[in-house]
């Protein structure tokens, strides 16, 4: 009898549970949404009891939070940060600007569909989302990880041409390496 499959499955279940309970976030404070992150982390809402904790650098982080609108200029840096993170990694789009452009829907410099450029696992809607909504977003992400559905990093690698094509379409001066993680 072949135990290998069961062993793999068991390992995956155990690692997924561990990953879901230990989310180190890199709060990329692109817009006004960054102000909700301290409220979520500190004493009233205390995200650390869910295992959510701030990471200092992209190398140590698991979750990239895009908190607010993204201009083209910032997107370039965000892509770079995302590719420096280590697998498995997740992206949370935060606030209505990240969802569909929000109030910047006719701006000449703000992207309106984040998931064209980065694989987003969870969107948190609201302008601004309250800390309760942020915590619910984390809970949703944890559920997805436990169910093995949050495979954004794999998706990004598999469809790299698609994402690169979209990124290069709006970033005119493409001056960083093709694949830098």
């Amino acid at each position, binding site marked *: 009898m072949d135990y290998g499959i069961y062993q793999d499955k068991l390992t995956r279940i*155990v*690692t997924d549970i*561990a*990953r879901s*309970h*230990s989310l*180190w976030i890199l709060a990329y404070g692109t817009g006004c949404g960054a102000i909700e992150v301290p409220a979520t982390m*500190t*004493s009233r809402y*205390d995200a*650390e*009891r869910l*295992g959510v*904790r*701030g990471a*200092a*650098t*992209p*190398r*140590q*982080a*698991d979750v990239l939070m895009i908190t607010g609108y993204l201009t083209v200029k910032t997107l370039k840096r965000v892509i770079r940060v995302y590719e420096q*993170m*280590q*697998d*498995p990694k997740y992206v949370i789009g935060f606030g209505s600007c990240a969802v569909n452009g929000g109030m910047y829907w006719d701006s000449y410099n703000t992207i309106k569909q984040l998931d064209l450029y980065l694989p987003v696992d969870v969107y948190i809607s609201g302008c601004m989302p309250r800390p309760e909504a942020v915590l619910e977003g984390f809970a949703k992400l944890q559920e997805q990880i436990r169910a093995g559905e949050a495979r954004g990093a794999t998706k990004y690698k598999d469809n790299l041409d698609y994402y690169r094509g979209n990124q290069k379409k709006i970033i005119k001066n493409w001056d960083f390496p093709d694949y830098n*993680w």
Partner: protein
Amino acid sequence: MEGILMSILGAIATFLLAFVVGMTYGGIRRKVIARVQNRYGPPIYQNFIDAFKLFSKTTAVHHGAMHLLGPAFLMVSAVVALMIIPVLRDNIWFTNLNFKGDLIFLIYIMTFGPLGMALGAGQTGNPNSAIGVTRGLSQMVGFEIPWVMALVALMIKYNTTSVVDLMNVQNEVGQWLIFQNPFAFVAAILASLGMFRYAPFNIVGAPTELASGPASENGGKFLFTMMSAGSVFAFVKLTLLVDVFFGGASNLIELVIKTFLLYMIPVMYGVVNPRYRTEQAVTYFWGWPLLFGFLAIIYSVYF
């Protein structure tokens, strides 16, 4: 043959004990900090989850051989120190590799790990790492002096350089060394505040200003190794303090109680203090701790 097997099993048991106790203490520390900040806090086993997750992450960072070896140096230093220190008195499981002069060797090996890490951090080329290393070495210059003076005072007084001999002295006299030479204990515990690198002495890995310093390029398995080494090292330092000043421990429960109470000193000092700047930290160690170190030596020589 049986003796060798027993030693190997004992070494593994020692390591597992140090790992588990160190990790749990780290979890308790996070809980304590959370409670002081009026939060609920993560569960006590959160550090194990974090460590397992870090271990299960892929590693696609490569900056060169020294960078790969940096966390390994930390681990080697922690494990070697653990193997030298007598964990329990007269126990066949925790016999360890004591020898005459191990106190001097311990002083050396406890600075070896951070030095190796500094070399590894230097190769990453990250400016934050370089600043962190500079700060770490400055701080080490600060706390090593009172620390060495405290131990030297004991060496002069009892004319020995062995941890086991110091433990035996305490048994024979029937009085702990903390009462026989309190100045040495104060100097040592103040130096250990810097050795633990908790606030206010967390200037090396200051996450908000240095992006975790020497660890800033280390994610995944590197960070797992650093975290485990840190936990083992915390256990080593606490056990050494217990052995030298509190007469060691004859069973595990006694050991855990004594080390936990000692561990709460840097933790509690940390939660109520903000971060020092580098020169403030160095001047701190060259103030009262150094004075207590001198007093300890004078006390040992003349009384």
